[in-house]
């Protein structure tokens, strides 16, 4: 796209393009967001030209409502939920906030003694900071579940935390797969433990949803967070899969559009595109999982060949790790220097850490996995997805040795 600017320095709107091309020729940051699938783009642009608020009673409203409900059914089916168990949100962060705060408030209202929130120490900030907020403002007691050095919460760890005082647990929240290091949690086992004690169990499945068989009914979880833009849908729409009969206290009040749990006019084009992406991603999941995992394994091999002391963080490749994730610590390097050098060579990746004014803080995930601060700072995440090809992996393999060497000199 040309970069014409108007007088105020803003980009002018250009002619639409059929294909969504990442700005970097080698895009290894699919865990941040993955390119829109052509089917999602087509669904979204078609729907943007349509009129109608799905809450309206007239014909235009009914048409929009029908699109929403068809989308809801598709998404429900893909994730082992009933249509009524899909609560659309503005994305993963909102769904996590609704699950954590809403379920805590509801549980505490029913049984005031239940103040403990058990969550893994490696949660995404949407869960982590919601739990922290509850503990600072709503009398919750945050009990952080330790992870093993590979990032996994064991059933024994959760069992011990529950059994310390089962009657005081309000909620358990453990992510399905970690966004930074790709470790997959034994969700079925953990959810079963929660169910034994009749404790609501939420899992942030944002990273898992496009890559693993995520299923609400089979896990027996109370709530699962999913979001569109990690699976080839648009940014700005997601869902909380909320088991029947669960009624969290709303975070957003208003028209009560979604089961009286979530208010706000539904974003029909985004929801339709979300469903289109889910449909494609679900159909291709097994094949894509194998293809992407093979690319990832080659990426790991190439990086380790070029940088023999690079440490692969997280669980070993296999069913216990997201197929698209490779996460390394490069001893003696600063992650932000590596990122900049790779960016200059047209390779996009991530330090996977939270930013304040762009200042990288050492990753809480790696620190929880018993990494020291230097190892946490010197780490990079490469994440593959539906548009990844062998050439992307080879491009990284060709430069990573030189880049690490240079970053090491800069860190001295």
């Amino acid at each position: 796209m040309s970069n014409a600017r108007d007088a105020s320095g803003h980009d002018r709107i250009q002619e639409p393009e059929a294909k969504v091309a990442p700005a970097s020729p080698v895009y290894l940051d699919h865990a941040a967001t993955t390119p829109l699938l052509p089917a999602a783009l087509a669904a979204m642009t078609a729907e943007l030209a349509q009129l109608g608020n799905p809450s309206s009673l007239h014909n235009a409203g009914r048409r929009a409502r029908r699109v929403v409900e068809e989308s809801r059914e598709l998404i429900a089916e893909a994730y082992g939920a009933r249509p009524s168990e899909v609560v659309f949100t503005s994305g993963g962060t909102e769904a996590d906030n609704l699950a954590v705060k809403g379920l805590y408030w509801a549980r505490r209202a029913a049984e005031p003694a239940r103040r403990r929130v058990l969550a893994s120490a490696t949660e995404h900030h949407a869960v982590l900071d919601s739990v922290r907020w509850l503990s600072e403002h709503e009398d919750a007691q945050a009990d952080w579940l330790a992870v093993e050095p590979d990032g996994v919460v064991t059933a024994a760890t959760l069992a011990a935390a529950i059994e310390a005082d089962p009657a005081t647990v309000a909620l358990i929240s453990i992510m399905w797969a970690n966004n930074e290091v790709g470790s997959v949690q034994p969700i079925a086992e953990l959810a079963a433990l929660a169910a034994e004690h009749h404790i609501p169990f939420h899992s942030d499945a944002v990273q898992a949803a496009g890559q693993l068989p995520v299923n609400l009914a089979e896990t027996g979880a109370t709530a699962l967070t999913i979001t569109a833009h990690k699976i080839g849908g648009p940014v700005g729409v997601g869902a909380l899969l909320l088991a029947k009969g669960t009624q969290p206290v709303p975070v957003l009040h208003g028209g009560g559009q979604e089961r009286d749990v979530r208010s706000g006019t539904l974003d029909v084009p985004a929801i339709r595109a979300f469903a289109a992406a889910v449909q494609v991603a679900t159909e291709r999941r097994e094949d894509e999982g194998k293809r992407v995992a093979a690319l990832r394994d080659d990426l790991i091999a190439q990086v380790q060949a070029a940088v023999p002391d690079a440490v692969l963080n997280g669980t070993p490749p296999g069913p216990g790790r997201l197929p698209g994730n490779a996460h390394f610590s490069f001893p003696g390097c600063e992650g932000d220097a590596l990122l900049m050098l790779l960016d200059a060579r047209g390779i996009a990746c991530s330090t996977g850490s939270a930013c304040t004014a762009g200042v990288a803080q050492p990753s809480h995930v790696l620190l929880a996995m018993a990494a020291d601060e230097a190892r946490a700072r010197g780490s990079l995440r490469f994440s593959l997805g539906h548009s990844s090809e062998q050439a992307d992996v080879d491009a990284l393999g060709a430069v990573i040795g030189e880049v690490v060497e240079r970053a090491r000199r800069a860190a001295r």
Partner: protein
Amino acid sequence: MAPLSWDGMTTLRVLAAMSGGVDSAVAAARAAAAGHDVTGVHLALSSNPSSYRTGARGCCTLEDARDARRAADVIGIPFYVWDMAERFHSDVVEDFVDEYARGHTPNPCLRCNEKIKFAAVLDRAVALGFDAVCTGHHARLESVPGAPGRTRLVRSVDAAKDQSYVLAVLRSDQLSRAMFPLGDTTKERVRKEAADRGLGVADKPDSHDVCFIPDGDTRAFLERRLGSAPGPIVDADGAVLGAHDGTFGFTIGQRKGLGIERPAPDGRPRFVLSIEPVSRTVTVGPADALGVLEIEAARPVWSGCLPPTGPLDCLVQLRAHGEVHAAVCEQADDVVRISLREPARGIAPGQAAVFYDGDAVLGSATISGSAR
């Protein structure tokens, strides 16, 4: 660090330090327009940005990081934030406090150039493959006549904005890797150019105060760091005229805020003549007692000429935005003795003495003592 020779190099890989202000934005834009391969970097100087300056001015806020990022967007260059908080704290903030504790008057901008921008940042940039660091300082660089490949620092064409004084501490190898695209341009024209280039920071106010003292109250900042350390204020004969809460609240030549109730017998205003931190004694006296003719300065850096082997006739500037004085300088070991032709007032240890030949910087040293 190896000095860089630009001979025959048309495209340099340039790291542009972008504070979020108008000068560094235009400097980066000019470097990019000249065909260099420019990457913008905002230096995060506090790990907790809100703990330093709040508001639009200065160099440490989230808003400034955003302004810098937007300028980089408009210029069309990559942009990153580099975390320099630890280095800045130890090399600039702690040094500032220590210097005041020793009765000196430090210049933190100079120290930041010496230790951060053209040391920590430049070293990292070079290690990462950059050729030069570009900033929005108002100063010029030019080849030393008769010494090919040597670069010297020259005052900006905008005398009111000239920043050669706070850059004079740099060695020639550092200057050889510096780029100051604004030295030939007045501030007024820089602002106009920023507007013409569509840079939103065109009208952003200049920063004035010390960036890590948000409210501008240096004395209160130092008192929080150093605590109360009361002592006497005396006249030249040792008669006690008053008391103070810490010698760090004073600088030589200071007239205001002495807190002495009794006026001088002759009715003339009093000035701080000397600060003695061990006995916590601040000596005050009349203006004519401030004048000094002999100055000692330590740790000289000669970037614009070879270290002088005999007496050197030159001009010397003794504080930021201060006047220049004709002087003869002579170096012995690591100390430069400066003999002024006419007495100068308000000479404070810790400030830099910068030696000029006309507008060109010859070198600098840190004032350590003076005598009438």
